[in-house]
């Protein structure tokens, strides 16, 4: 069933490539269908997922390259099921949202479906080699999507994104090989590696230095995933990639791609190298806090709406990191929930930004020459303002909406750990700043006297509302009662945390 | 060694003293001056008489009875005339050229088969020597015409040289059938093989003159004769001295004795050519139906020699008469016609004859028509 979910988009891509070039609508409908089916299967997955067990489910295991005993080993456990559901949902919404893309439609949708397969593959793969392949596979369509359909200097952004992530994946490749070499039965199986954790005691000599193996692996993996998350020093590609990517792509980029970094850390760093993780816990917390504060401050200074949202997602990912660094049930669960909630809220924000961009073709809150980009849109587009308000309050963590639950859990979890308390206090500053830049943005764009430029803006079309509806429902429902998502992950997280008690 | 230098030996025996080579030299000189020079003089006279007769006029009849001594008069005039070298001419070559021409012509005498015994030097390569020596004439003419620094003489000289050299080829080719039949280059031998042989026991020896050995040889004889005419620049091939165009051709600038040498050379050459024809195809000294050799034991060799000499000279004079005869009958050929006749006419014909003779020899194992026709009858 899992293989079907992963590879139906690929089949869809194949079909699309065969379709005639001029019939854009046909291409769009096929792409829509090939994302709806995984969505439906996703619901099935959600229904049939056994909340109790921590082990990997829906496992499909076929020996692929026996020589290096690499297996086509797919499975979903607590950590990844939420992400799979999120990916499937977001891709479905993005296809609807990218209905207005008109140039090279075939290429666009083909690349998009390939991207979806890549992402689903990353979350489902339980074999490190397969994980790496999907990781790289996901990279390429992303490059094309940004590079071709992007904004003004899209090529710079695409190349920067590609090279940066590639640098990260190169480090991951090193660890891949290292793990293969140093693990006893020479395998890539993550589950088996997680259970045996062979690298704790071994050491490696690098340039004459005698280094503990697990710490070396941990650092390399961490840098690889940090680029993806993105964590503070490695984050500069994100604003560029977001600003230049088309709406649907930046939704997927923010919604899913960022989570791969943290998911990777949980699956690799935490599960396989627990001692190294404990050793680096403090370092992780510091970076998390920097991420939160730094993201918030930068967001506040941005003039471009999409860049603001990009920096806000950096800040939100900071919470995820803080939660992971706490090693407490509340913390880690909060982190994974935050990955999901951030996915939904940022997706809404980006879609809404896309809506305004399609109408006005610029995203300046404050134009470079200092004049107001927008102003008083509430009078002209009431529905849009309403949904934007919901999205803003969800992402700034207003209680009653999903953002708050995960933040609360993260802070509760982190505060219970004595040495992390100071970080929580500093982190809480992020909540205030988050509220500040988002509401300031909301005020400057939606409230105040009507800017004559946007006098005649039409309100949201029914297609845009359809795209946003599921996200709004999710945000409100998970805000009120988060258990449906939480109990998906809590079992395997608790099993993961047994390593850290 | 048999007949070589027979004449020399006979002289040495007759005089008895001195080494043989001295006598060889003397014999050469004797033949030359005894035969060649008077013949030349007589020939001039005869020619003028014959041509006069043909033109229905009298010819030279002032000097001596019937103008017989005309040639002596000419000769004396030649000697008396001033022999000068034109200004700017190449003195050495101017004097050397006539000598070369005359030497070329006279040298051939050594080989002519006057008779079985009056044979200069019956060399093994006989006929080849004759051909070789006569080729000296061509450079001689060339040098003479060039040395005289005269456009007309130069053109005449070039034409003469070209003519002589081109016609050497048909002459050589038409000699070969005779050689094929008699199997040797020695002219003496060739003449021997042409003797009439009657006796049956010889089996294959029913010979007669080569000309009648096979049809090809017959044709080869005529070819040789025509080639000979061309070699000696006689009508119809006498373009070099064609009065109307090139004054007197290559010898325009020569006067006095040098001109005399040229005239002498011309007549000696005619004599040599006709004697070669006679020697190869008309049986040389062989009487038509009598084989003197077989009879020689009964007649003193000297008599046999002179009979053979007489027979040979009669044949030669007949041919010379034909030559003179032709002078006033055939029109003169243009240069290109001359060349075309040689290369497109005579040479292919000669080749055919050679091939024909060879095939004949191979087919009939060397027997002549006579043997073929008479052979079955005889035995």
């Amino acid at each position, binding site marked *: 069933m899992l293989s079907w979910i992963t590879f139906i988009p690929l089949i869809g891509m194949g079909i699309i490539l065969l379709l005639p070039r001029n019939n854009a609508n046909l291409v769009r409908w096929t792409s829509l269908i090939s994302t709806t089916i995984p969505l439906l299967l996703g619901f099935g997955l959600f229904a049939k997922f056994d909340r109790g067990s921590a082990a990997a489910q829906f496992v499909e295991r076929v020996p692929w390259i026996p020589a290096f005993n690499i297996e086509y080993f797919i499975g979903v456990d607590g950590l990844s099921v939420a992400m799979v559901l999120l990916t499937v949902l977001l891709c479905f919404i993005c296809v609807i949202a990218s209905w207005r893309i008109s140039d090279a439609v075939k290429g666009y949708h083909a690349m998009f479906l390939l991207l979806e397969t890549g992402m689903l593959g990353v979350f489902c793969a339980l074999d490190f080699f397969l994980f790496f392949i999907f990781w790289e596979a996901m990279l390429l369509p992303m490059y094309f999507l940004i590079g071709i359909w992007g904004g003004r200097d899209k090529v710079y952004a695409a190349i920067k994104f590609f090279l940066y992530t590639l640098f990260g994946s190169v480090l991951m490749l090193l660890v891949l090989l290292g793990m293969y070499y140093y693990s006893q039965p020479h395998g890539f199986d993550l589950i088996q590696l997680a259970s045996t954790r062979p690298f704790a005691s071994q050491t490696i000599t690098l340039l004459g230095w005698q280094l503990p193996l697990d710490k070396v692996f941990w650092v390399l993996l961490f840098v690889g995933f940090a680029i993806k998350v993105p964590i503070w020093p490695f984050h500069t590609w994100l604003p560029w990639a977001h600003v230049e990517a088309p709406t649907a792509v930046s939704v997927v980029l923010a919604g899913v791609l960022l989570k791969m970094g943290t998911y990777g850390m949980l699956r690799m760093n935490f599960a396989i190298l627990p001692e190294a993780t404990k050793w680096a816990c403090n370092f992780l917390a510091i970076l998390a806090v920097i991420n939160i504060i730094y993201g918030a401050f930068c967001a506040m200074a941005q003039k471009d709406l999409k860049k603001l949202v990009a920096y806000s997602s950096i800040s939100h990912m900071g919470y995820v990191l803080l939660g992971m660094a706490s090693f407490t049930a509340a913390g880690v669960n909060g982190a994974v929930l935050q990955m999901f909630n951030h996915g939904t809220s940022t997706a809404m924000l980006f879609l809404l930004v896309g809506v305004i961009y399609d109408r006005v073709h610029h995203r300046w809150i404050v134009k470079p020459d200092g004049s107001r980009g927008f102003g008083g849109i509430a009078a002209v587009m009431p529905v849009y303002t309403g949904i934007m308000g919901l999205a803003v309050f969800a992402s700034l963590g207003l209680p009653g909406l999903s953002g708050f639950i995960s933040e609360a859990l993260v802070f509760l979890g982190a505060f219970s750990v004595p040495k992390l308390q100071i970080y929580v206090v500093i982190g809480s500053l992020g909540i205030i700043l988050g509220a500040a830049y988002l509401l300031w943005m909301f*005020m400057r764009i939606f409230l105040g006297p009507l800017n004559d430029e946007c006098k005649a803006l039409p309100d949201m079309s029914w297609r845009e509302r359809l795209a946003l509806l599921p996200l709004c429902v999710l945000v409100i429902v998970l805000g009120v009662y988060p258990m449906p998502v939480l109990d998906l992950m809590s079992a395997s997280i608790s099993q993961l945390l047994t390593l850290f008690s | 060694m048999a007949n070589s230098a027979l004449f020399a030996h006979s002289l040495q025996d007759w005089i008895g003293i001195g080494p043989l080579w001295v006598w060889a030299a003397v014999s050469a000189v004797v033949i030359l001056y005894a035969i060649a020079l008077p013949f030349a003089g007589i020939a001039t006279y005869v020619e003028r008489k014959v041509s006069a007769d043909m033109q229905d006029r009298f010819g030279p009849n002032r000097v001596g009875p019937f103008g017989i001594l005309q040639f002596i008069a000419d000769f004396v005039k030649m000697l008396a005339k001033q022999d000068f070298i034109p200004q700017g001419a190449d003195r050495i070559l101017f004097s050397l050229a006539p000598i070369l021409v005359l030497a070329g012509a006279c040298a051939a005498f050594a080989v002519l088969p006057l008779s079985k015994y009056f044979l200069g030097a019956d060399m093994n390569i006989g006929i080849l020597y004759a051909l070789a020596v006569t080729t000296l004439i061509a450079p001689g003419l060339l040098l003479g015409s060039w040395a005289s620094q005269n456009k007309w003489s130069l053109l005449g000289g070039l034409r003469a040289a070209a003519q002589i050299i081109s016609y050497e080829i048909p002459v050589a080719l038409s000699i070969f059938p005779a050689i094929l039949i008699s199997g040797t280059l020695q002219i003496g031998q060739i003449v021997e093989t042409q003797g009439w042989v009657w006796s049956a026991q010889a089996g294959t020896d029913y010979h007669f003159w080569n000309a009648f050995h096979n049809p090809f040889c017959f044709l080869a004889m005529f070819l040789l004769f025509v080639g000979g005419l061309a070699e000696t620049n006689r009508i119809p091939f006498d373009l070099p001295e064609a009065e109307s165009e090139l004054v007197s051709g290559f010898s325009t600038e020569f006067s006095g004795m040098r001109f005399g040498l040229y005239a002498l050379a011309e007549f000696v050459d005619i004599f040599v050519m006709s004697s070669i024809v006679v020697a190869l195809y008309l049986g040389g000294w062989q009487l038509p139906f009598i084989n003197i050799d077989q009879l020689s034991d009964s007649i003193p060799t000297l008599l046999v020699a002179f009979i053979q000499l007489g027979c040979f000279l009669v044949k030669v004079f007949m041919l010379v008469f034909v030559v003179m005869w032709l002078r006033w009958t055939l029109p003169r050929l243009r240069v290109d016609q001359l060349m075309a006749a040689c290369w497109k006419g005579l040479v292919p014909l000669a080749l055919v004859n050679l091939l024909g003779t060879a095939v004949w020899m191979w087919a009939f194992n060397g027997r002549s028509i006579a043997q073929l026709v008479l052979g079955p009858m005889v035995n």
Partner: protein
Amino acid sequence: MAQTCLWIVCLPILAFVIQVFFGKRLPRQGDWVSLAAIGFSLLLAIPIFGRLLSEGHVFDTLSFSWLSLPQTAGAFQIIIGVLVNNFTAIMLMMVTLCAGLIHLFSVGYMHGEDRYHLFFAYISLFSAAMLGLVVSDNLLTFFIFWELMGLCSYLLIGFYYKKPEAIAASLKAFMTTRIGDVGLFLGLCGLYAVFGTSQFESIYAAVASGAAESKTLLGMPALTFIGFMVLMGAIGKSAQFPLHVWLPDAMEGPTPVSALIHAATMVAAGVFLLIRMFPVLEASHTVLVYVAYVGAVTAFLAALLAIVQVDIKKVLAYSTISQLGYMVMGVGVGAFAAAFLHLITHACFKACLFLCSGSVIHSVHTQDMREMGGLKSKMPWTFACMLIATLSISGLPFFSGFVSKDRVLAGALAYGMEHTGHWLIPLLGFAAAGITAFYMFRLIYMTFFGSARDEHKHHHAHEQPIVMVLPLVVLATLSFAVWFSGPTGVDAFDQVFSVHWYEHAVAGVEKEMALPAPVEHHEGIHHVAHSLALIFSLVLAGAGIFFSSLVYLKGWISPVKLKSFFSPIHTLLWNKYYFDHLYINIIIQKGLLGWNRFLAAFDDWVIDRILVDGWSRIVLFIKSIVGLFDDLVIDRMLVDGSAGMTAMGGWAVRRIQTGKVQHYLIASLAALGFGLFYLIGMR
């Protein structure tokens, strides 16, 4: 009874949902839906209050596990639920009553505004949030509804979103309260870290049992940390001193909003929080003093500010801050019961004052008192209610204000006498009382007495319709002391008709909180303080009234001269102690935004340009060098060089080829000669 509370909360939420989605299309844009909702809630609240009055004690809890995460040791549980005790009942009664009246009032006030249905949606959401806060049995849901109220205040203050000042005020309000909320949230985290739960009963029990003494949070004793954080929350929400700047600006919102949110309910939530967490504050010993000081200082300074205000609503806003200061001081000095009573009475008369000012504004269409005057004859009902409320707030006998204020001041005085080190607290309290009377009567005189300063507006002034006046009257009647203690408000006199339901309620709550019994031997001081406070407050109130009538009624002392006399103080007050300037220009503009711009620039230039693109520049540099090397060394020297040499060699050899045949022959013969010579000669 807990289920009814759930219903009380859910009805307004339902109304909110209906209004948002269908409000525009409903008849009268759905205002009756909200009215009905709050009305039913009122009806449901009355029986609960009734039981309290009759049985003197109400207690019911209902809780369920909202979120449970398995972890190695058992599970991380978050249990939320409903707690109904005496205070909850009282608060329910007060909130639903005020909200209902204000709904009624706003039907008239907001008539004809665009987004009318949204106004009612927001108000019903706010009521739901306040009710939810009141009934919640743990700090987490308390915090959730706390923040929802913040949202509603943001939305309502910014209701007239076209006015830039309004939206600025809403943002300021939300941000300042948000700062406070963060403090509260950290407190919540502290609670979970220490007690593992945030339910009040379990906390009261744990605190009583002294379990948390040993634990420390961030180096401080746990309870002190939690106490401070809670205080921070209260300061933010109840606009106490450092974070009070948002309340005066919040007056930009429509008046009913100001009445409901910024008088009666929301700002009171902070005090209610302190009261709920009183056992924790009590146990941490050090926090209460700070609470008291915050309260006292706020009361005094806010009162001073109120004197110089010219905008009618601003005056009332500062008076609210000052009265809240009283409540916080009350909690700080341990008299949390008095604070609670003052909270209730203040809600009534302050709501009445705001609504009266609303009707005045509605009629003269301006908020500036200098353009009013002589409205007494024009708006008799409004004047009457306003006068009653003013008398109540000034703390004159027969009025509810006197009852509660007197108890607070008595507690403060008792505290001052016990802890003589803190003499400043009662002093500030009594001073504030005096000043309150002064500025309140200044307001009355400037609006209703004297001659009309603006004929045009005066002419248009007219009494409001019944739907607006009715709530005024009801609230005015509630401002009398008779409801709370007795007709005169002074215990000594109204022994006969004294009302004791409140004392019983307080006793019930104290039992629940399992507070350590206060040390009895101070009983004497308590009684003495009580009588002294009575005398002081009456004297000071009288003086205040006398002075303001001197200045504003009789005009003997012209305000201008006063202003010039106290000019330095006046300018200080006029600029609101430069707090706004400090916050806006310095902290926000220069500090925060400047730092952000610097950080963004730093991020863009340093990290992006240098660290990342720098690499590409290095690679390009290396590439050019290698390219240069390759071009110069290899191409030039090796390749072209060898080509050059061969060309030279060719040239040298070529000279031999002279073209003359003989030369070649000579050469070959020479070679032959050498060969022969060598072969033969050498041998």
